[in-house]
């Protein structure tokens, strides 16, 4: 099951709440304002690194670029819209919007 998160983790509870339900085989895709969670050097980085020990985390390249987020946390994989489509083709989707 792919979880998708589109809100900034610094002002909305979506990512935090999503992380309560992801199981080991569940990848997480950050897009729209959700991509701020992928940025390196933030107060959230330790928690994201914890998540990366058990789960694959993806961030949408187009949204990162639009927001000027160049440095992402090591281990987070960048995908473009085609990669977003591939992830949805591989997994059922749980939109955590």
């Amino acid at each position, binding site marked *: 099951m792919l979880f998708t998160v589109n809100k900034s983790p610094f002002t909305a509870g979506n990512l935090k709440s999503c992380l309560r339900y992801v199981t080991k085989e569940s990848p997480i895709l950050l897009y729209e304002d959700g991509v701020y969670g992928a940025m390196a050097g933030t107060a959230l980085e330790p928690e994201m690194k914890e998540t990366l020990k058990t789960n694959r985390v993806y961030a949408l390249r187009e949204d990162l670029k639009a927001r000027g987020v160049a440095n992402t946390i090591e281990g987070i994989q960048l995908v473009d819209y085609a990669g977003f489509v591939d992830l949805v083709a591989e997994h059922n989707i*749980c939109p955590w*919007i």
Partner: protein
Amino acid sequence: MGEEQYDEEQSTEVQKKFLFVFKRAPHGTIYPYEGLEVILIMAAYDQVISAVFTDDGVYCLKKGQETAAIGVKEFSITFKVLEQYGVEHLYVDKEALSARGMTEADLVTGVEVVDKETIANVIREQDVVLPF
């Protein structure tokens, strides 16, 4: 509720597991109201329907809502009839409920108050997840 006519039983060859996730509070946005509308229509299609209430979605089930003074429809009572519509499970996240100072006694209808692991397993089994 009930702007559309609820059809007689629809027959399809495929049966899927649909999960409605109620994450938003009622009245602030139209999302949970519209989620309920979808369930009522979907009930005619012989699918497996469940619902999860978490985050502010647990407020949808709160007893004692009286919306007359803000001029919108009160729809929490409709959650009571979901069982009759064949909705198999109503799961409520225990922590979401208790963080908001509520217990099962505060809710309009009988539900299964469960831990996050149970909800994680429910989500994992679904074919389609619809967020409201």
